[in-house]
């Protein structure tokens, strides 16, 4: 069908961009219907072409596509290009991104239908907000595709920043809300910290490899294995460790790893569809994808891998705790996302990249499902997000209820569901890892299973079962959400159940990622596990006997007891261990710490520098001073231009004489 892969890959990327441009620039002409039609068409085209490519690469055995589409510029022999590297890793990401994006697009029709109410009457931004929203999410899809399809670090960085920008725009979508503006600023600033490291990492790659092209860099990586650099005089660092950790700092920002995670819970200020798309399924996994993509470099630095594993483990466990005390339905899901991202990161640290990507994929489906289901609840509750006001909703929202249950089961890793395969793999892979820190990580991810089950089912029971705690007016209006909302839920629920069973063999133990992910022999924990793998069904059976299953079951049981039966216990516990409860409610004081030390500190520093450096030195002396003196010099010099011909001629002679005196005498 497509002989020319270049056009195909370009079409995948450009279709959402075109949709976004049309919806954004012609919002008045297209109207609401036109806007969602063009964007959905654009994303659908991308999805179908991605599926075609998936088939081509995975089933038809097509060769990896690696081509540069356009050379932006060449400087000192280094080419800055736009190009696409489409291998199995990429194509998997493309299908996930476009599929979830398409679901979210459809869902948005229902979610944003009444968006006009969210804006003050006179707000200009409220005009065409519906079309703008569609334009943004299509633009996000374009950016994300650019990121995953890049064949060089420059384009990766472009996509990285572009998704960050759209995320910023969407978190602050309701720009009339103070809290939304604070949240998007926070997301932007925290990401900036990460991006700083990321950019330094790319710069280090460029400096030592003289190329930004993935293939070139990876092929030459082993040449730099033993290079040491002195960043701080006197202490030599391995170049690979330095590059890997710098790049990972970028990933920590984007994928919200401790301690740069603080922006993600606040990002829930954005509309729910984007929480599902950007802050659960796709953008936040960009860091995971990046590390997997750059695996040939990471394999050369055990220090970096250990670092990654420890950071991931901290995130996986401690962010889960925070989910236990939240009352906002979206925030619970957000903390669960943080925790799951921690799992993926741990997998990367254990060199089980395939498991990380596998979990990324399953997580994309079930977490998008959970978010969209939460959104569906929020629609039904007339945009009340407090779980204390819910309960017993299963009667009113049957489809949402069932799909939520499926999502939760997938999340806690109930045997057979998608999450089970990926999460179990990660836990076992960590258990096999020999790297420093793997012991801690193993304990953390095991404990995390219990916590995950606890907060997931706490939310599930609070929302769908128990007493109906909403007020009379709301109860009166409760009804199932429209089909545009429930259809994506159903479509997402299907992969949440089956995708793990179908893919585990191929993805985790097969040669699916051969050529795109490299694992050193000594690190290859998945190969060890693969030796004891006898098929997906056997894995389910085996899963019933392992610790994670019993921990998850214990978590569900505990949740049932605490929130269905003995509902007085949580309150009692909160009172008894109030210091702990406070610590959790304050999110370990990370926010105040960041705001206090970094926020106030840098503000103070900024004020000082501004007063002294900017106002006095730069403005006073340098800018205004030099402007004044240049102006003065200019007004003096212009008088040389007297208008008299003989002055001019004389100047020429003087010039000649000057050259003579300098060069001859």
């Amino acid at each position, binding site marked *: 069908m497509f002989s020319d892969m270049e056009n195909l890959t370009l079409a995948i990327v450009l279709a959402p961009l075109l949709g976004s441009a049309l919806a954004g620039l012609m919002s008045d002409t297209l109207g609401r219907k036109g806007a969602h039609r063009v964007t959905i068409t654009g994303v659908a085209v991308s999805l179908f072409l991605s599926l075609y490519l998936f088939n081509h690469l995975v089933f038809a055995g097509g060769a990896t596509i690696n081509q540069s589409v356009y050379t932006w510029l060449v400087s000192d022999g280094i080419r800055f290009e736009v190009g696409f590297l489409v291998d199995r890793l990429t194509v998997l990401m493309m299908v996930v991104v476009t599929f979830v994006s398409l679901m979210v697009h459809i869902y948005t029709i229902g979610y944003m239908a009444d968006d006009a109410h969210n804006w003050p009457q006179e707000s200009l931004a409220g005009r065409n907000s519906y079309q703008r929203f569609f334009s943004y999410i299509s633009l996000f899809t374009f950016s994300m595709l650019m990121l995953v399809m890049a064949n060089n670090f420059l384009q990766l960085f472009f996509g990285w920043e572009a998704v960050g920008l759209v995320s910023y725009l969407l978190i602050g979508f309701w720009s009339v809300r103070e809290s939304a503006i604070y949240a998007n600023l926070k997301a932007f600033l925290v990401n900036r910290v990460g991006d700083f490291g990321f950019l330094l990492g790319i710069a280090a790659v460029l400096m030592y490899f003289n190329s930004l092209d993935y293939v070139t860099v990876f092929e030459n990586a082993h040449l730099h294995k033993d290079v040491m650099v002195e960043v701080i005089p006197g202490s030599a660092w391995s170049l690979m460790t330095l590059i890997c950790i710098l790049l990972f700092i970028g990933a920590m920002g984007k994928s919200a790893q401790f301690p740069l995670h603080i922006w993600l819970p606040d990002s829930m200020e954005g509309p729910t569809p984007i929480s599902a798309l950007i802050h659960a399924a796709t953008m936040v996994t960009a860091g995971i994808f990046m590390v997997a993509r750059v695996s040939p470099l990471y394999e050369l630095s055990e220090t970096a891998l250990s670092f990654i594993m420890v950071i991931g483990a901290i995130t996986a466990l401690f962010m889960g705790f925070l989910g236990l005390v939240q009352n906002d339905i979206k925030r619970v899901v957000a903390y669960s996302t943080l925790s799951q991202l921690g799992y993926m990161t741990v997998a990367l640290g254990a060199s089980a990249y395939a498991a990380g990507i596998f979990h990324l994929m399953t997580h994309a489906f079930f977490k998008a499902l959970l978010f969209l289901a939460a959104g569906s609840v929020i629609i039904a509750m007339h945009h009340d997000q407090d779980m204390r006001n819910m309960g017993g909703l299963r009667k009113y929202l049957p489809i949402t209820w069932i799909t939520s249950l499926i999502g939760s089961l997938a999340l806690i890793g109930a045997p057979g569901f998608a999450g089970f395969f990926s999460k179990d793999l990660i836990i076992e892979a960590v258990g096999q890892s020999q790297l420093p820190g793997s012991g801690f990580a193993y304990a953390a991810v095991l404990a995390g299973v219990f916590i995950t089950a606890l907060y997931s089912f706490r939310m599930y029971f609070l929302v769908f079962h128990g007493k109906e705690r909403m007020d009379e007016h709301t109860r009166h209006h409760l009804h199932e959400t429209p089909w545009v909302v429930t259809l994506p839920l159903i479509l997402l629920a299907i992969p949440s159940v089956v995708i793990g069973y179908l893919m585990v063999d191929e993805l985790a133990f097969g040669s699916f990622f051969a050529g795109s992910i490299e694992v050193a022999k000594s690190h290859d924990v998945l190969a060890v596990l693969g030796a004891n793998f006898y098929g997906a069904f056997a894995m389910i059976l085996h899963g019933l006997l392992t610790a994670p299953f019993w921990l998850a079951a214990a978590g569900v049981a505990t949740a049932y007891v605490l929130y269905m039966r003995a509902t007085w216990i949580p309150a009692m516990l909160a009172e008894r261990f109030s210091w702990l409860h406070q610590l959790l409610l304050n999110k370990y004081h990370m926010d105040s710490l960041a705001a206090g030390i970094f926020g106030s500190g840098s503000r103070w520093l900024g004020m000082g520098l501004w007063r002294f450096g900017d106002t006095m030195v730069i403005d006073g002396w340098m800018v205004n001073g030099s402007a004044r003196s240049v102006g003065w*010099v200019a007004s003096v*010099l212009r008088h040389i231009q007297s208008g008299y011909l003989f002055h001019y001629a004389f100047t020429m002679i003087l010039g000649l004489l000057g050259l003579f005196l300098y*060069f001859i005498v």
Partner: protein
Amino acid sequence: MNFIHPQFSLALPEMILLGMISIILIADLFISDKGRVVTYLMTQATLVLAAIATAAVMGADVALSFNGHFIIDPLASLTKLFIYLVSMVAFAYSRSYLIERDMYRGEYFVLGLTAVLGMMVLASAHSLLTLYLGLELLSLSLYAMVGLRRDSSQAAEAAMKYFVLGAMASAMLLYGMSMIYGATGTLNLWEIRDAVAEGSGHSLVLIFGLVFLMVGVAFKLGAAPFHMWVPDVYHGAPTSVTLFLSSAPKLAAFVLMIRLLVDALPALASAWSDMLVIIAVLSIVLGNVIAIAQLNIKRMLAYSGISHIGFLLLGVLSATPEGYAAAFYYAIVYAIMSLGGFAMVLVMSRQGFEADELSDYAGLNERSPIIALMMLFIMFSMAGVPPLLGFWAKLAVIQAIVAVEYYQLAVLAVLFSVVGAFYYLRVIRIIYFDKPTERRELKPANDLKVIFIANAMLVLLLGLFPESLMNLCQSAFIY
């Protein structure tokens, strides 16, 4: 000296131009004022024909003809093609201006074409004699064009100054050439190169001649301290002539410099490189600083032109092929930007109103946002704001001097381009933030407006895609 039968076909573009000049000169006698558009169209057609002919004789190889007086190499052909392009745009810009000012006469176009012919001779010159004659042909045509508006005493004064100072510069150039000839005994550029390499001629004599050559070249380029004519002539000349004067002839002067310094006297590179350092520094400093004090936009652009020439010289003084390519790139970029810059004045002017004071641009954004935006592009490009074209040109020359380790020079160039940004941004400020003094709708002629927008968009597009033009320039200096 043995006579070799010349290969006339190589000079086909020159012959076409000369033939068409003669035809236009005669045909114009029979064309009434109303039908003058025929002359105009014939002029443009001439340039198109010349371009086709140039492309036809263009080759990767170097070919000599007319007993070594004439050369076809990539530099010559490329320069010619750009000269045609720039001249066509300049003529197209001038049409409505000329009509409004009663200057729409055949002589304007004939003199313009002879100037183009002069530039072509310069571009293809391979002996001191042809260089000099080409320069004179160009200069003479330009003197006349500057003074063509007879009812303006300003224009007459400008023409007079230009002529007298130009004659002085020509005389110095000629004297320098005579010294080189005296020292080496030949006019042919490559023979001069070989003779100098073999050690004929005392170095003192050669340097003495070189200084005179340098004065002549610097004058033609308008580099300090031989720049005094530039502001007065740019200011006094009719704007359409200024536009022409500031664009295509700079390309020709650049080639003149390359031919004299690089083709003929590479052995003296250390000497001329030092001279160019002095001239470039003076040009960059004086041009940028004095421009700040200007209230007349034509004078401001004149001083900005002087500073741009200073930047261009940075590329040449690096004395590397990369540097020459960067300078060539700068010359082309400057020609494009300068066309746009003076076209701003043309777009704003109308019958009886020259629009050359900065205050005339106040609040332009409210009168015509699209033209204001285009002006913003051009001003930003001249200031060297990425990603517009001017940025890449500055970057290229600065890279060239950094490559030969003239770090102080690079720092100075960057510093003064910041100083320069001041007066470009002032124009933007006036256009966007000052209150308009008049609210009359801006109605430039359609062709003028379309070309102006195309010109400004070119500055943007070539800035976004800088590679192709840069590669073209580099191809001219592959030895």
